[in-house]
């Protein structure tokens, strides 16, 4: 009798341990602060991912800093600010500014495309559509803007859309004509800042990523795939758009060629909390986790995510290797 109750007691202990073991492991291995620098256009989906992730791992504390993608990189390369994960709206920013000194790899995880946003009160909002937007932007008195091409990829991409429209619709001089109707004062550092100009009635039309338009519940005109920089099938055509942006020092410029909007993400080499950063990436790249959030917030993800070479895939943390495919 006594022996039996002893066995029972032991059984309870074992059962309790077995039940608790996975819990304590899953909430125990991800903890501490994880710093993420992200492109402004990722702010809202990342905020939601943060909530979901921190609900799973209460000990984790994600700190996000949103800025233009190039500024994010500058904070790492120039200001030496500690950072675990960097997500850029243009994956080439990571390739050009962070690899190889600050990062080893670069996963392409989502896409986006350009749309023309407006409000009910915007001029000619009743008539604007995919066929006449470029004619409306050329009208006198219409205030439209884009973000600074030197600071924000969305800025030079907006200009590329205009160039592509000129080629696609075969209207010579369209680009110059439209730019002439956009005083410099209508430019803002980041595209997200244009949203408040639309909402306060200071601007009629603004170029945004589709995701930003969806997240801020703006009205927007969807453009043809050939010009919206959203479909990599048209990369050959996108290449024909060329915009000059700030070079290495003031007064110098470099040429940016059009290419589909592809988001890149990496973990920094000297990430202060690498373990946790890998767990976050595992969640972000999961089709039922972060990628689902992106989908819902207007930012079509790559399922699965992509790296350009097999060698880069090999350099990923092991748990991430099986989550990506090699595709250029």
């Amino acid at each position, binding site marked *: 009798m006594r022996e039996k109750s002893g066995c029972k007691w032991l059984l309870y202990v074992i059962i309790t341990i077995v039940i608790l073991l996975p819990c304590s492991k899953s909430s125990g291995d991800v903890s501490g602060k994880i710093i993420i620098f992200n492109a402004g256009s990722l702010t809202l989906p990342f905020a939601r991912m943060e909530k979901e992730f921190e609900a799973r791992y209460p000990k984790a504390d994600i700190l996000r800093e949103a800025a233009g993608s190039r500024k994010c990189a*500058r904070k790492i390369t120039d200001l030496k600010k500690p950072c675990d994960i960097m997500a850029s709206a243009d994956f080439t920013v990571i390739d050009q500014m962070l690899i190889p000194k600050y990062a080893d790899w670069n996963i392409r995880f989502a896409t986006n495309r350009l749309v023309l946003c407006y409000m009910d009160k915007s001029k000619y909002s009743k008539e604007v559509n995919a066929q006449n937007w470029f004619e409306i932007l050329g009208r006198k008195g219409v205030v439209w803007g884009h973000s600074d091409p030197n600071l924000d990829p969305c800025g030079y991409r907006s200009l590329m859309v205009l160039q592509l429209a000129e080629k696609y619709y075969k209207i010579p001089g369209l680009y110059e004509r439209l730019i002439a109707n956009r005083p*410099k004062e209508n430019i803002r550092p980041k595209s997200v800042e244009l949203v408040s100009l639309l909402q306060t009635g200071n601007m009629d039309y603004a170029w945004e990523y589709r995701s930003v338009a969806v997240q801020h519940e703006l009205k927007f005109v969807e453009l043809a795939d050939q010009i919206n920089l959203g479909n990599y099938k048209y990369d050959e055509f996108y290449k024909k758009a060329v915009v000059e942006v700030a070079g290495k020092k003031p007064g110098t410029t470099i040429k940016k060629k059009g290419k589909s909007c592809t988001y890149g993400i990496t973990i920094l080499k000297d990430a202060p909390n690498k373990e946790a950063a890998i767990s976050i990436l595992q969640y972000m790249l999961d089709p039922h986790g972060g990628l689902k959030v992106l989908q819902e917030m207007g930012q079509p993800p790559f399922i699965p995510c992509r790296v350009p070479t097999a060698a880069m895939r090999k350099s990923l943390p092991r748990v991430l290797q099986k989550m990506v495919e090699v595709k250029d």
Partner: protein
Amino acid sequence: MKREPFFWITISCGVVIMAFILLPLIQLMTSPSLGMLRETIQDKDVVRSIWLSIYTAGLAALISFVFGTPLAYLLARREFSGKRFVEGIIDLPIAIPHPVVGIAILSVAGKNHWIGQVFSELGVRVMGSVTGIVTVLTFVGIPFYLNAAKTGFESISPRLEKVSRSLGASMFSTFVRITFPLAWRSMLIGIIMCCARAISEFGAVVIVAYHPMIAPVLIYERFEAYGLRYSQPVAVWLVSICLVLFLILRILTLRNAKEI
């Protein structure tokens, strides 16, 4: 004479505070090379932005002076119900986060607001204009002027004014001939404070006007597009020029203080 411990506490606290303020500034001022500094000041954009900064901050101070002086005088001399409330409102711009100031001003200046509609019919543009910059700078700077001028007026005995009034001078002429000569130093300090606050403003301005660029916005743009190497020299020039301007103003006030 034996120094008390309290004396040494004051000295050591003073040294700590001086180091706290000066160390980062010295680091900033000594980072760029002389060649870089020369190259930067030859850059037309830099000169234009620093000039625009000084000019708009000066205009903001002038507006604060013209419209703020009567209010400061009223607050210093009269007791009325709701005075504390008015004083609270005056301090509000100091407490509001800068981007919020910018958005608030834009929302009044936009088409969604009747004031914005009136403006657009008059052809006045706030977004992306010098008008907009001055509006923002006045908004953030005016509390500093009001408070300094008010303190100045309060320190002058109302008796002097009463004597003047009893001898037949009007309220305006009393103000010009008695109050102003006694309070002008506080008013000047208020103007300096207002200017200083205005020159340093970034967060609200960048929302209302990115172009034309004032110096802090240019520093930000240079940092983002080209990195620290090209933004620091601009900052050094802005800090140096402001320092010289404020020093001159301070010295002027001091010299006159001794004369009186």
